[in-house]
């Protein structure tokens, strides 16, 4: 077999990898630019600050922004302590064994459940059995089940990456286990934990199926967590699917993309800030 000149083959590989990387970034930019070209012209202060009128054909998207924030808030309120607690238990309070394996398997299976199935679960439990109906509370709780695996895994990884020596130092100063965790381990793991939480928000912002099943799609401005609400992503889906108003749909999509960008950037900045603070 003929062997290629090593310098030439290096060049070919490099070019090939460059093209692959370039296309990945290209797809991302194409989507973002396309959405912005179609959507940005719709944006105005009125669009952001007024409620939808006539099924969303006119007016703004204020109610959907508020519903989105509510939903994320509720989901994090439940998922953060649960996830962080599980991660602390798995990393600090147990030894690797059958039980940790079962718990890990459980959380990973949870991550693998299709979101529509979780939606059905939320519908059966929160909407019907608990009698909360389509409400932001039902939606938020279902969403929190979806976020749990991400929060557990990222928290676990960041807690494990804290050098064992820090724990030994704290113990050697006569600091108890719980204080060692809260005063030494968690601060050092904070950048990773926060990034995990924020990225899980970015994921949940885009959910639709689960939300429609559990929080419904009411366009009214939500006045409590027991009311139904429509998130940005659901609003976009309905506007586009029902052909109500494509310009409004693109406007909503642009806000959604901007929101996710802002969340990602703030996750990055928070991480940088926290890393500086604790190192």
């Amino acid at each position, binding site marked *: 077999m003929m062997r290629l000149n090593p310098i030439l083959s290096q060049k070919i590989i490099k070019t090939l990898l460059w093209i692959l990387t370039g296309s990945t970034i290209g797809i991302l930019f194409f989507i973002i630019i396309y959405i912005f070209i179609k959507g940005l012209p719709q944006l105005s202060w009125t669009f952001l600050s007024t409620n939808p009128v006539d099924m969303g054909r006119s007016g703004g998207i204020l109610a959907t922004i508020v519903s989105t924030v509510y939903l994320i808030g509720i989901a994090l309120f439940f998922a953060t302590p649960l996830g962080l607690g599980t991660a602390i238990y798995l990393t600090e309070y147990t*030894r690797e064994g059958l039980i940790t394996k079962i718990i890990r398997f459980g959380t990973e299976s949870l991550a693998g459940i299709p979101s529509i199935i979780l939606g059905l679960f939320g519908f059966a439990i929160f909407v019907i059995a608990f009698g909360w109906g389509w409400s932001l509370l039902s939606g938020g709780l279902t969403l929190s089940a979806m976020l749990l695996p991400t929060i557990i895994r990222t928290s676990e990884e960041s807690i494990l990456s804290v*050098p064992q*020596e*820090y724990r*030994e*130092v*704290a*113990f*050697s*100063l*006569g*600091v*108890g286990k719980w*204080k060692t965790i809260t*005063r*030494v381990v968690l601060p*050092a793991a904070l950048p990773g934990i926060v990034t995990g939480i924020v990225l899980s928000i970015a994921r949940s912002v885009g959910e639709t199926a689960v939300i429609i099943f559990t929080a419904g799609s009411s366009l009214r401005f939500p006045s409590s967590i027991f009311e139904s609400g429509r998130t940005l992503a659901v609003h976009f889906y309905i506007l586009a699917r029902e052909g109500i108003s494509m310009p409004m749909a693109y406007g909503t999509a642009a806000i959604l993309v901007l929101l996710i960008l802002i969340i990602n950037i703030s996750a990055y900045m928070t991480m940088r800030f926290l890393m500086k603070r*604790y*190192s």
Partner: protein
Amino acid sequence: MYGQEFSLQSISLAIPKSQITGIMGPSNSGKTTLLRILNRLTDLIPDILIRGQVLLDGVDILMPHYNVNLLRARVGMVFAKPIPLPRSIYENLTFGPRMHGVKDRRILDERVEQSLQAAILWDEVKDRLFESALKLSGGQQQRLCIARTLAMQSEVILLDEPTSGLDPISTAKIEEALRNLKKDYTIILVSNNTKQIARISDRVAFFLMGDLIEYGPPDMLFTNPSDKRTEDYVSGRFG
């Protein structure tokens, strides 16, 4: 005993107050394990089995209900690798006292200064107490770790090869600090560096493969050892 393996057997040592007790021996001779038993850091090792007694002021610290946190406040530890917590110099020193309930800012300030003075670090860092401890050099970090133990106002200081990663000048500073400290503290120094042990110890113990071979004043072990193995070790024939 870790799992099936013995790391120390039948040790009996009386460690004198206000002196430096040096512990030497090749790697795997059980020195570090002994040190970690003394402030019960061995509790962190699952399945470890320790039999016997360690008496501190006549009380056995190995008893299960003994308050480990108070023990560790009295028996401080300095590790082989300097490990400053990722915080300011000031916070490194006040972390221990704060966790033990010292809140008064004046007392904390005082402890910071005293412990840094005693660890011969004060002059180098007094103007940057609130900068990250990670910015210090290796030698300074290790003196900070000694100061961190002193700030706890502990009575016993365990040092596990504290100068193994340091240059001769940093080593000399730490040895000087230890010499000054011994009047107020009981110091136990584990070291691979036989010369260091000879320089600063008042009593020397020689360990080999988990056995205590010889224990006595340095003159005896270094010039007139009673055991052939001690002689071989201090004269550099092995280890």
